């Protein structure tokens, strides 16, 4: 692994992370590590029913427990508003109110009904169990395809047929092209429901100082500014009086890109009791009260010419949104709509997306957020087509790639792909994976009684969310820009304050590298602050592989502003015109006179001293940027999985995994590799192990980590990775984004490999997760037919 052996820590180097020192020493500061004077503890009484009317709540037994400070229901908590949803894709999306605490009816297991504040966590949890709630159970709607049917139990009066929103997109001339195509293949694909499971559950500590009506909220979030805005709006307090701090955050993966009922409830409890109030989510709570991901059913038909050229795709997608909408719920499957064509020159699409309420936990952004669903679908369809035509899966893809010369390329769903060069990544992945010699390995495994298969995923994604005009056009109630402040101190060190909010991505390291490269201030003399609305200009946070491509560019542009100002000061001090200066290695120097020079540190001191500034130039070297991205970025790559299926048990083992990704220019290769590894493993987890399961009564059967399988190291392969570099023309650093690439790519190649392995039995499709029992059953069924 690369380290700072060169002593350089600029863009493209791999300095070790600044973030690590406290985390490896046990000195991290996560929300649950914080203590405040007089602190009390919260716990929630939650619904055990998926759908029921509440006929009575008796809090008296809970209130009688020694140490209980207060017990609240919706009648006493005093919050009129509900959990916000900032997503309305069509302008006609049904957005039923989600109360902070249930108001007379519950619509999912785990819905909070009462809130206890007590002197200890144990007492709070005891008291939560002592709240007596009488429920009259109602019929439930659990499976979205059934929930859409006439006569199905209804969740919300404003959403007849349980329909949240329908989104359609059909290209002009679709029907003629689709009908005329000589080859058609169809699949129904279930992109199963997942639970994000950041290893740190959610956690909130609210400190409402009632004397001046100011609140500080420590919360484990990816989006502290959104939390501040919505806490102010929902609780009726000035936004300027709300400070939100995301201290160390133990993973998010989209699940903390949200504003939750518990954040409002705990803040309000602090306001009402006058105590700082801490709430720590238990894992069992988290399995139902934190958002779920995916749960999209797809019926797709791909139409092609006899030579394998793809012509048109028709797809009906049914997205289970759960019982209520969270912050961005309706937008997630909308992103699938955009990415349906993948990286193929597919001119026609006919897409219908139905988003349906059911009596389950809301779905929302989970690493990849809508794009894994698209990639998995189109990559399964391409393999199905290759199989139908008897073509090699790699060559079919190569034939249909958007050609390099076609960029910027406008897709059938209206996106403008910024740059791409797909064949080199494919070629490199085929070579690294020994694709051409695979058949010998298949035969060798078959001789041992096992089935071996190889599968491809050639992927593209939409990153760098998002141009504000686009977020508005697709009905998201927030812009997509990002902020940065750069402050050079009199002694020449620097502070960066970024609106991006890291939770493991290594911003402190990468942002310091940008400053070293752009201004010549050493990496070790740059401090990066994030996740605190008290310090930071408004920031939109970390999600959607946006931090570097939007927040990093905000910092890059801020460095340019600082350098430009320093140039004016240098010219004044060196008694020359600014145009006579050139920038080199952290210094402004007179062209041709390297002895006439001012370092950035000297200029920072001069700007602070302020006594010899050029006319009209303000003292100090500090600048702020709000960067509005002109377009998305579109990273891409090829992944290859080689798997073996135990012929007797159906157990799938990934024998080799090769990833070639292209995320444009790279700031820190070590961090990029880490993101790739983590994303791939999270996606392998979907392909092989994970599934959130509800029974027909709406009880979740996977309500702990005993029942919901997060894979350990022993279940996973070593990943071999490499890169190609196709810079983005969208931003001055040429960067694209990498955080979600692995999760977007991996399910398809793993499942394609498994189907390839079993194709000799006539198997043409397998649903995730490929747990041994399911694969074994598929083998038995196929053998029975033979």
């Amino acid at each position: 692994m690369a380290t700072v052996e060169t002593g350089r820590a600029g863009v493209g180097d791999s300095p070790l992370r600044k973030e690590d020192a406290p985390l490896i020493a046990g000195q991290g500061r996560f929300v649950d590590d914080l203590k405040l004077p007089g602190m009390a503890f919260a716990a929630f009484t939650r619904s055990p029913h998926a759908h029921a009317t509440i006929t009575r709540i008796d809090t008296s037994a809970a209130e009688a427990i020694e140490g209980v400070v207060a017990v609240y229901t919706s009648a006493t908590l005093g919050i009129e508003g509900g959990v916000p949803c900032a997503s309305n894709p069509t302008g006609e999306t049904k957005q039923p109110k989600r109360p902070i605490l249930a108001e007379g009816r519950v619509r999912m297991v785990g819905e909070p009904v009462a809130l206890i504040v007590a002197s200890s966590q144990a007492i709070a949890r005891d008291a939560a169990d002592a709240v007596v709630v009488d429920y009259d159970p109602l019929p439930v709607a659990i499976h979205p395809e059934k929930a859409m049917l006439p006569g199905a139990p209804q969740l919300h009066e404003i959403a007849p047929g349980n329909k949240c929103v329908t989104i359609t997109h059909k290209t002009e001339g679709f029907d003629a092209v689709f009908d005329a195509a000589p080859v058609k293949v169809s699949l129904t694909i279930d992109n199963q429901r997942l639970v994000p499971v950041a290893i740190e559950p959610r956690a909130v500590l609210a400190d409402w100082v009632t004397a001046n009506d100011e609140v500080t909220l420590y919360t484990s979030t990816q989006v502290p500014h959104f939390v501040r805005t919505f806490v102010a709006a929902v609780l009726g307090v000035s936004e300027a009086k709300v400070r939100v701090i995301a201290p160390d955050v133990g993973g998010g993966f989209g699940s903390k890109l949200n504003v939750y009922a518990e954040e409002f409830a705990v803040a309000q409890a602090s306001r009402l009791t006058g105590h700082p109030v801490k709430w720590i989510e238990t894992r069992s709570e988290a399995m139902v009260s934190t958002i779920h991901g995916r749960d999209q059913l797809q019926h797709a038909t791909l139409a092609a010419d006899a030579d394998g050229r793809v012509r048109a795709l028709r797809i009906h997608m049914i997205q289970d949104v759960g019982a209520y909408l969270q912050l961005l719920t309706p937008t997630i499957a909308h992103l699938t709509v955009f990415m349906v064509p993948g990286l193929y020159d597919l001119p026609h699409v006919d897409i219908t997306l139905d988003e349906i309420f059911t009596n389950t936990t809301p779905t929302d952004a989970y690493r990849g957020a809508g794009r894994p669903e698209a990639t998995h679908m189109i990559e399964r369809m391409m393999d199905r087509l290759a199989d139908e035509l008897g073509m090699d899966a790699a060559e079919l893809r190569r034939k249909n790639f958007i050609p390099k010369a076609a960029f910027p390329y406008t897709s059938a769903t209206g996106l403008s792909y910024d740059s791409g060069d797909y064949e080199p990544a494919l070629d490199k992945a085929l070579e690294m994976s020994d694709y051409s010699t695979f058949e010998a390995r298949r035969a060798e495994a078959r001789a041992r009684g096992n089935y071996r298969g190889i599968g491809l995923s050639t992927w593209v994604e939409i990153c760098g969310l998002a141009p504000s005009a686009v977020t508005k056009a697709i009905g998201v109630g927030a812009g997509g820009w990002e902020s940065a402040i750069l402050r050079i101190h009199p002694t020449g060190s620097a502070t960066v304050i970024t609106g991006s909010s890291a939770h493991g991505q290594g911003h402190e390291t990468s942002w310091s590298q940008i400053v070293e490269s752009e201004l010549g201030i050493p990496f070790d003399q740059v401090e990066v602050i994030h996740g605190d609305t008290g310090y930071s200009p408004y920031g939109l946070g970390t999600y959607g592989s946006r931090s570097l491509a939007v927040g990093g560019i905000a910092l890059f542009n801020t460095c340019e502003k600082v350098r430009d100002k320093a140039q004016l000061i240098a010219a004044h001090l060196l008694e020359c015109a600014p145009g006579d200066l050139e920038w080199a290695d952290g210094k402004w120097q007179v062209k041709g006179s390297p002895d006439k020079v001012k370092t950035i540190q000297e200029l920072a001191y001069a700007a602070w001293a302020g006594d010899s500034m050029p006319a009209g130039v303000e003292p100090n070297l500090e600048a702020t940027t709000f960067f509005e991205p002109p377009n998305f970025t579109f990273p891409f790559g090829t992944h290859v999985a080689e798997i073996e299926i135990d012929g007797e048990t159906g157990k799938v083992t990934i024998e080799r995994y090769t990833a070639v990704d292209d995320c444009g220019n790279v700031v820190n290769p070590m961090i990029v590799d880490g993101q790739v590894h983590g994303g791939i493993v999270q996606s392998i987890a979907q392909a092989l192990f994970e599934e959130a399961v509800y029974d027909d009564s709406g009880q979740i059967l996977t309500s702990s980590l005993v029942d919901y399988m997060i894979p350990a190291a022993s279940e996973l392969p070593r990943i071999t990775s490499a890169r190609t570099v196709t810079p983005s023309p969208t931003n001055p650093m040429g960067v694209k984004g990498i955080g979600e690439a692995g999760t977007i790519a991996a399910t398809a190649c793993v499942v394609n490999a498994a189907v390839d392995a079993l194709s000799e039995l006539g198997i043409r499709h397998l649903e995730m997760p490929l747990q041994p029992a399911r694969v074994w059953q598929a083998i038995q069924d196929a053998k029975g037919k033979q």
Partner: protein
Amino acid sequence: MGVPISLTVNGKHVDREVEPRTLLVQFLREELELTGTHVGCDTSSCGACTIHLDGEAVKSCTILAVQADGAALVTIEGLGKDGELHPMQRAFHEQHALQCGYCTPGMIMSAAHLLERNPNPTEAEVRHGLEGNLCRCTGYQNIVEAVLAVVKG
């Protein structure tokens, strides 16, 4: 109602009275304010709370504080010696074996103990030895690299 317990934590003698239902991890975090040991689940699945108890790696969410009476504990805060990081802590840093850092203390404690039992493991043995600890960020690859780096010395 408190039960007196007496134990050694990171080389220091500790005498306390605890409520019988107090889990060892709660005792460490809340009573001794050693918050480097984390809680990530309620089923002994994730391993974020792993510490050393009389030389064995244990999940401190799975035993009561009263059961640790008389024991010698080491937590992540006490793993290093004489102000120096333990080689496993250094290796996690050098091999980029952590991202969010939440599972990291438990993972380091398990990994350090793994090498005490088996100083020269294969990659497969490292992966098997860490199966009681979950990480959601790294894909484990660099964690395995870190352990192997310590083996190589």
